[in-house]
């Protein structure tokens, strides 16, 4: 394996260093390091960050390979600077058995571009009725630790309680998609003045907040860990802030799109903006930004949800929910949070890499320490560029950011010391 040095690169705190790696492991970091490396990556003008870690990714395989595969999703991930993604369970068949999660895990290994950690379903077939074989998935080769019925809410309080309790025996984590199904029957967009004017069925904030409040109380009662997927309302932030102040073991994620986009975009009925949970108001966006900056919200997760063209090239009600996000996540978070002065680059590293790795227990991810696997992303913070969804490596191009000018761009990604992305282009190399 080639030894590589990244020379004259900045760290997130602004200091200039060189980073050396041998056999895929970081061996040296400092202003002055040894010089006998096989290859030098000139880091001048770039910033080195630990590879990003996504806890919420839809890779669509098995079942929806026309939208994405584990391979194309991995390519999209490294183009966005991610060195670990978490494949959501709502595939077909559902990832509710050891067999399916092992298949996804193996496909990730074969792709060799980033780590692919399968998420297991909480309930059999995502039906919300009966627990899936959580223990079997946990002890499988995929070693699943996160379980989620994402796309569907575990609305039955008893099933939720049992799930929270059951995963304690193998330190598992339940990631809840908080959406009361009865309060969101046929819901299409955030409930408010705009939904009323557009005649689209409203998706009230309380449908999310009531489930979050209930689950926080349940997690406290059974002394288990709870993770809240894609928080989207100001009220949810308040409830999570309260829970944390009480020492309840809850973590939360926010998506890049909920940090930047608002419901106003829907007035033309373009389904590119159709997503679950829905885009909310400016007030919600501001509360989410504050919550992410002050630590109420722990991490950014993409909820990358690729869909084939025909599922968005139609009328609003017929369109699928979801947006791609892997390849724009860093730029969106940098633009909305760092460039705007709301948080530091160190905090960005925390929310996009360190904290998700810690929450999920992804050992070796989220660190630039000597001795860690060399999962490194180089970004150019001075770059402003228009997003071009057609150039994305994802198999789908349903990006709501298409055409928007964003700041901060991912240039290179190293996975186990292998440069899988250079200057924004796949090198064709993989980690075997």
């Amino acid at each position, binding site marked *: 394996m080639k030894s590589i040095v990244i020379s004259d690169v900045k760290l997130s705190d602004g200091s200039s260093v060189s980073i050396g790696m041998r056999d895929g492991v970081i061996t040296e970091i400092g202003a002055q390091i040894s010089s006998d490396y096989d290859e030098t990556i000139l880091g001048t003008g770039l910033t080195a960050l630990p590879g990003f870690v996504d806890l919420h990714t839809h890779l669509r395989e098995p079942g929806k390979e026309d939208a994405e595969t584990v391979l194309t999703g991995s390519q999209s991930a490294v183009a966005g600077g991610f060195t670990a993604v978490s494949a959501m369970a709502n595939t077909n068949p559902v990832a509710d058995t050891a067999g399916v999660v092992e298949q996804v895990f193996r496909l990730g290994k074969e792709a060799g571009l980033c780590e692919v950690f399968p998420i297991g379903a909480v309930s059999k077939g995502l039906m919300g009725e009966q627990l899936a074989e959580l223990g079997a998935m946990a002890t499988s080769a995929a070693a699943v630790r996160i379980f989620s019925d994402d796309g569907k809410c575990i609305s039955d309080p008893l099933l939720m309680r049992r799930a929270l309790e059951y995963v304690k025996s193998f330190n598992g984590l339940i990631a809840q998609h908080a959406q009361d199904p009865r309060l969101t029957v046929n819901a*299409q967009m955030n*409930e*408010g*003045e705009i*939904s*009323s*004017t*557009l*005649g*689209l*069925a*409203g998706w009230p904030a309380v449908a999310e907040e009531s489930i979050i409040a209930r689950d926080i109380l349940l997690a406290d009662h059974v002394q288990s860990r709870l993770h809240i997927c894609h928080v989207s309302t100001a009220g949810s932030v308040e409830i999570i802030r309260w829970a944390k102040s009480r020492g309840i073991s809850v973590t939360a994620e926010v998506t890049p799109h909920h940090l930047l986009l608002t419901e106003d975009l829907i007035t*033309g*009925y*373009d389904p590119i903006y159709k997503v679950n949970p829905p885009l909310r108001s400016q007030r919600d966006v501001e509360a989410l930004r504050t919550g992410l900056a002050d630590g109420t919200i722990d991490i950014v997760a993409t909820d990358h949800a690729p869909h084939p063209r*025909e599922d968005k*090239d*139609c*009328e*609003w*009600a*017929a369109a699928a929910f979801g947006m791609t996000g892997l390849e724009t996540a860093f730029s969106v978070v940098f633009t909305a949070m760092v460039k705007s002065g709301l948080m530091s680059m160190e905090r960005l590293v925390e929310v996009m890499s360190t904290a998700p790795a810690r929450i999920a227990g992804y050992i070796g991810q989220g660190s630039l320490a000597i001795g860690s696997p060399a999962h490194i992303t180089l970004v150019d913070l001075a770059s402003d560029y228009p997003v071009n969804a057609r150039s994305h490596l994802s198999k789908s191009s349903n990006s709501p950011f298409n055409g928007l000018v964003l700041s901060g761009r991912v240039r290179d990604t190293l996975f186990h010391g292998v440069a899988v992305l250079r200057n924004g282009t796949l090198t064709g190399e993989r980690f075997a």
Partner: protein
Amino acid sequence: MSNLLSINDLTLDQALGILRTAAELEKLTEGGAKKLPTLRGFTIVNLFYEDSTRTRISFESAAKRLSADVINFSAKGSSVSKGESLKDTAQTLQAMGADAVIIRHGSSGAAARLASSGWIKASVINAGDGTHEHPTQALLDAFTIAKRFNLLNNEGQIFVGLKVAIVGDILHSRVARSNALLLTKLGAEVTMIAPPTLMPVGVAAWGVSSDYSLDNRLAEYDVVMMLRIQSERMTDSYFPTEREYARRYGLNSERLGKMKESAILLHPGPMNRGLEISAESADAENSMVLEQVSNGVLVRMAVLYTLLGGPTMVDEVVKA
């Protein structure tokens, strides 16, 4: 103006233009001109994804009186029931040479998608999209009101001083949305009356006031517009029973008696006699239900005229 998707697409002058064109067309028809040659050679498609006999017939009749060729496309028993997408259906109609597509669709925004997504070049007229809008219904209601109160020759906001109540399932009503926008644009003072469960969130943003009681100010309204109540609203717990709804929000003869003598009663139809409106009220002298139907054809002629022919053609025909 090449499409009519929402009342928001119309300026005050354009809205007045359509109403006045309808009045001119009425004079022409009353003068014996049953059919006008204006749109000869034009192909107009009625693309109806929902059953709606009266709206479809009204548009068909309007188009035929202007000598256009009309194609009726109903989703039932067509390629749509075989899973064809809106885009493919629309492009098929375009390929057959449609100059205008009149679309009725169950999905809010379907007309807007058809007009703005680059799928087709034809003019798009919204004949009702989900729970969003039904602009030609609002125009025909405004025309009915303007005629009755003899306001068409006024300038600017011709409905200033007029009080209008819209009563019923505001939440799910495209008629209510279009009327709120148009009647306030024309200067009327509009009040939405519904049980709280059927009142949209943030309805004040429409420029209207709202009231949970029909009896509160019933004697003040110049126009009372009753909306149809769908029976499935009851099973979804928007209100307890039909009987309770009729008692609290139905226009019965007692309430009819409390209305201003000059006030008129509108209903977009089809009516549920005995639910939102009693038979006495529906057949009362000040009920304009049948006028609404005949005005509907005139207003839709005026819309087709304006979109496909343009004002100069209107002038020519009117002069002729």
